[in-house]
C-alpha cells in the first residue's frame, strides 16, 4: 500500500459493526504491548510478509504535490528487520532504550473498511508521548497510520502492512527507537 492508494471510504463499516470493535481492540492491545515493552508479543502480531514504511515528508507548495516521498523512508521494514529491531531492545545493548523510555500511545479516529475476504483496512491516528530520563518535557510524534490487517482465523488478525504518515518534516525526537 502506498500513500497514493485510495482509501476505501465506500467500503467502511459502521462503528456499531462487530468488526470495528474487533479492530479497535486489536489496535488498543497493540499500544498496550508497545507501551508495556512486551515487544515479543507485538512481533507475534506482524505478518511474515510485513511491509512497514514511514515516508519522509517535505513541505511543498500545493502545486508541487503532497510532499510524501516514495523514495526515502524513516522506516522501510520487513519482518526480518523488525525481528532485529525488537531483539535489539529485548536482549542486546540498546543505550537508546536502556533505561527504557516511558511511552504512551493514544490511538483514535479509527476508520475500518473491508477490502477483501480476509483483508481489512484500518486507518487510525496515533499520538505518541515519550518521556526519557529525568527530562521535564516530552518528545511527541503525531501521525496517521494506514494499516492492512490479514485475517488468519476467526480469532487472529496480523499486521500485513503499515504506512505511517508523520506530521513533521523535521522530527522533534532524539531518535526513533520506538515503534509507531
Amino acid at each position, binding site marked *: 500500500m502506498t500513500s497514493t492508494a485510495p482509501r476505501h471510504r465506500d467500503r467502511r463499516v459502521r462503528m456499531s459493526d462487530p468488526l470495528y470493535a474487533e479492530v479497535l481492540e486489536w489496535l488498543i492491545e497493540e499500544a498496550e504491548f508497545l507501551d508495556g515493552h512486551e515487544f515479543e508479543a507485538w512481533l507475534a502480531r506482524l505478518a511474515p510478509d510485513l511491509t512497514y514504511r514511514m515516508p519522509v515528508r517535505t513541505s511543498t507548495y500545493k502545486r508541487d504535490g503532497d510532499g510524501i516521498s516514495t523514495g526515502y523512508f524513516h522506516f522501510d521494514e520487513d519482518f526480518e*528487520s523488525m*525481528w532485529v529491531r525488537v531483539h535489539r531492545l529485548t536482549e542486546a545493548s540498546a543505550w537508546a532504550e536502556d533505561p527504557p523510555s516511558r511511552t504512551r500511545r493514544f490511538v483514535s479516529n479509527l476508520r475500518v473498511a473491508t477490502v477483501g475476504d480476509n483483508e481489512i483496512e484500518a486507518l487510525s491516528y496515533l499520538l505518541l508521548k515519550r518521556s526519557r530520563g529525568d527530562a521535564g518535557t516530552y518528545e511527541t510524534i503525531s501521525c496517521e497510520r494506514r494499516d492492512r490487517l490479514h485475517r488468519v482465523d476467526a480469532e487472529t488478525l496480523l499486521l500485513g502492512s503499515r504506512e505511517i504518515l508523520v506530521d513533521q518534516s523535521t*522530527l522533534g525526537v532524539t531518535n526513533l527507537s520506538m515503534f509507531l
Partner: protein
Amino acid sequence: MNEPGVGDDWFLPDGTSVDEFARVEDRLVATRVLSDPEIFELEMERIFDRVWMFVGHESEIPNRGDFVTRYIGRDPVIVTRGDEGSVHVLLNVCRHRVARVCNAERGTSVTFECPYHGWTYKNTGQLRGVLAQRLVYGDRLDKAEFSLSRARVGVLHGLIFATWNHDGPSLDEYLGDMAFYYDLVFGLTENGMEVAGPPHRWVVPANWKLAAENFSADSLHTMKAHRYAQELGLLPELNPSMLGALTLVSDPARGHAFIGGPLHRNEDVSEQETFEGVCAVDGVPRSLVDEVYERTSDETRQAFLELVPMVGTLFPNFSWLNNNIAHVREHAKVGAPHTLCIRLYHPRSVNEMEIWSWALVHKDASPEEKLVSARTALRTFGSSGTFEQDDTEIWSGIQLGVRGVQGRKQMNQYPATEPVMESGRPGERRPCTADDTLLGFYRRWRELMTDHRGDAS
C-alpha cells in the same frame, strides 16, 4: 596578520581566550566548546560563514527550475537549477523587507515571488519584477542592484557546496588531500550517484561537533556504543586487536579526516579478482565494475585496493558513511550489503543540532540494488537507524553533562598518540587508535576561531 593561537582578538565575557579551549598541544579540549553560547555565535561567524558548506546533491534538483531550501549556518538559502542548467545558491531573504521568498522545502519554480510586497526574483537571484514599481518608485529603483545575495558554488561528484567567502580557496583547494579519496567514494562511475529521496531531518539535543568529531575518526566507540550488532550476531565479535585493521587518514591542516577499511589484498588471488572484490565491498554494481576499472588510474586503483574509505568528516559538518552493514540475520551468512549515507550536522543552537541524512545510490544500479542500498542506510544510520539511535542517546547525555559549573570545567581527553605511517599516498595516515587525528579537527577549529580577519579560511 594575527598568528593563529595568539588569542588576542577575542575573549569570552569571563576573560578566557578562545585558544585556551582547544589546547591541542596538551591534548585537551575544554567542554565549554560544547556548551558556551558565545562560542557558538563565534562559530557561526568564523567557521560557518567562511568555509565551504554542504547544501545538497545535484540529483535533488535534476531539472531546470528545480529547487530545495537549505541552511548555511543559520542562514536560509535556496539551491536552484537555473535555466542554463547550472546550480545557484541564494540567500532566502527578500532584498526589500527581508521576508522569506520561498517557503517550501523543495519544488519547481523559475521565479520566487516574495509573499509580503511582491518582489519577484529569477531562480538565478536577479530581481525581475516589483509590484506596482512605477507607481511606488517611479524610475528611482534600479532592479540590477537588488539581486538575492548569491553564494559561491562548488560541485564535487554531484555534492553541492556553497560559501559566502567569494575570495577564499576553491572547493578543490579546500578538500586538500581528501579530493583523492573522495574520488574513490563518490566519483567511481561515469554517471555517478543520486539520492534515494529527500533526507531524514531530526533534532538531536546535542552540540554539532559531537557528531562531526565522531564521524571524523572515532573508531573506538564502535565496540561499546554499537555492541548490539555483535550481541545479535550481525557483526563478528569485535576485539581490540581488530582495530589494527583500520587506518586513519587526514588532512590535518584542513581538519578533514576519515577511517579507512581493512586491506583486501590477498596475495593468492589476481589483482583483477581482488579489484572485483573491493568493488563489491565498495558498493559498485556488478555491471559497472569494468567501467570503474577503465576510469581509474593505476595509482587510484592501487590506493583503492589498499584501503576503502569507510566513514569520515569534511570539516566542519559534512560526514559520510561508506560501509557494509548487516541489518538482518541472513546478512551474517551471505554478507552485509553496502550503503553510502551522507549527512549534515546542522547547528541550530549550542545545545541542538539537526541531523540531515541522505542515502546515495548508483544511478546505474538496478532498482533492486538501489532499494537494498537505501534500506541499509536508513535501518542503520538515520532517524530510526539502530546504530545512530545509540549515538544520539550518548551525545544527548554528554550535552546534559556540560551545562553545570563543574561540567564546564571538564576537559575532553585525547591522550592516545601514534606515529604517522608512511604510505606514499595523499594525507597523513595513523593507526586507528590515534587521538592525534581527532585533535586535527580541533586544531583547525582553533585556527579559524582565533582568526578575526578570515586569512585562515
